[in-house]
């Protein structure tokens, strides 16, 4: 399959133009232009230190003290899934899901059922396994029905088996709730399995922006999967086997 570049859509959910970010005079992101559509699942790949988290924080508007310029147009209603589940230890599972939302208990329970945690509403976060905590974090993000879901290596700390389950869950939930998604990941396979579109960040710009047209569910044995994988790995500077 020949990866191709995306055409610009007139009505994107996320729009950045000439986005610049730097630390202490060192440029990390230099003039990024990006549009993301409603319901589009974008994976962002890049070497460690390439600025993926910096870009995600910019989209989340969490970078108060970072030098920067450029236009940034993101929806007001956005959610972030962090690498750690980041649950408040002093609030139970349901309270964590509905944090800051008034009268959302029913929606919170429904969301917990969707991530397979029905009956755990009153547990403390310390009583959950790592994967369960990350599912609570996912429920907390999705119960807000975000227009934009930002996730920074959300499954990095999970074992391979749990990760596969989480992939299926995330795919399914995103198909149902239709947010625009930006998923930062180190894992090329994860990106190909989940994303409609893959970006590669290198030296402050996107050196790759391609659509993934593989049928779902994606099969690692598919030769096109392997071809795409080799292509991306070479773009990341890793010798592919």
């Amino acid at each position, binding site marked *: 399959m020949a990866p191709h570049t995306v055409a610009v859509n007139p009505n994107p959910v996320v729009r950045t133009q000439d986005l610049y970010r730097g630390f202490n005079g060192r440029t990390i992101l230099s003039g990024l232009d990006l549009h993301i559509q409603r319901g589009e699942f974008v994976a962002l790949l890049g070497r460690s230190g390439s600025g993926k988290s910096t870009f995600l924080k910019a989209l*989340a508007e*969490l970078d108060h003290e970072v030098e920067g310029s450029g236009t940034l147009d993101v929806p007001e209603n*956005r*959610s*972030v899934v*962090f690498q*750690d589940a*980041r649950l*408040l*230890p*002093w*609030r*139970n599972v349901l309270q964590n899901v509905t*944090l*800051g939302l008034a009268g959302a208990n029913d929606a919170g329970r429904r969301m917990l059922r969707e991530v397979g945690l029905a009956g755990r509403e009153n547990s*403390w*976060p*310390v009583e959950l396994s790592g994967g369960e905590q990350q599912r609570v974090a996912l429920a*907390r993000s999705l119960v*807000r029905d975000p227009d934009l879901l930002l996730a920074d290596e959300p499954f990095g700390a999970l074992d391979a088996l749990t990760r596969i389950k989480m992939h299926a869950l995330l795919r399914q939930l995103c198909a149902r709730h239709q947010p625009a998604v930006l998923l930062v990941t180190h894992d090329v396979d994860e990106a190909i399995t989940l994303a409609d579109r893959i970006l590669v960040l290198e030296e402050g710009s996107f050196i790759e922006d391609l659509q993934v047209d593989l049928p779902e569910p994606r099969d690692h044995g598919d030769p096109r999967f392997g071809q795409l994988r080799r292509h991306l790995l070479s773009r990341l500077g890793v010798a592919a086997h």
Partner: protein
Amino acid sequence: MTLIATDGFKPQQAAAANLQNRRRSGARVRLGPGPAIPFGLQIGSLALLVLWTLGSALGLIDPRILSAPWTVLDAFRQLIADGRLQDHFGVSAYRAVTGLVIGVAIGTVLAIIAGLSRIGEALIDGPIQIKRAVPTLALIPLLMLWFGIGEEMKIITIVLAVIVPIYIHTHNALRGIDNRYVELSETLNLSRWAFIREVVLPGAMPGFLLGLRFAVTLCWVSLVVVEQINATSGLGYMINLARTYGQTEIIIAGIVVYAVLGLASDAAVRFIERRTLSWRRTLSQ
């Protein structure tokens, strides 16, 4: 298998197996203190009481130096019979509790302001540190000048004493709240008030409760000081009067009341601690 045969035998066997089991797999050293002993926190105080009783009964303690427990009990009976103890206690309790409540409220609010704003910290932190360095006893003459010698001065003295530990420990805990939770609150669009309610107050709770443990004992301690300097009622006054007449047993009765109050207040705060901090998994559990 008959019930009679197993009765009385099986538990022993089970216990032995358990012990062996523990030995074999017990290679791993347990570093925590282990499960709690029932009423464990009262054991030390009770031991002190036993020592005192034995010492007096065996004649090892001179009654002129330390009255025997039964003499003190007699004094208690007398004090309660003529209503003196209840009256003095009531007056003291009113002062201590009023001072505690006001001091805790002020200390907490100051800690939150100083913790959440740089200007607040710049204005509040210095004066509190100064208050901490100045002994209450040295402040009392000044407070008497400003507020007279009535109830006002006494309660204000207690309030000032209580503010310090509440402020220090709450502020310290608040500053220690993980920045990741602040980031989370921002992404969830929490209002300032929701942020304080959901993150700041629960996050600072362990520190606040530690401050409260200091504060509850401190409010009784400052009470003695103010009541011995200028008062016509209260436990401190009762003790001071007994000193004038050389009534050791009444002095000790007063001290016993303070001791019981101190222990009871501390136990109350620990109880609150267990209830409100049940989300924690720590060394103490």
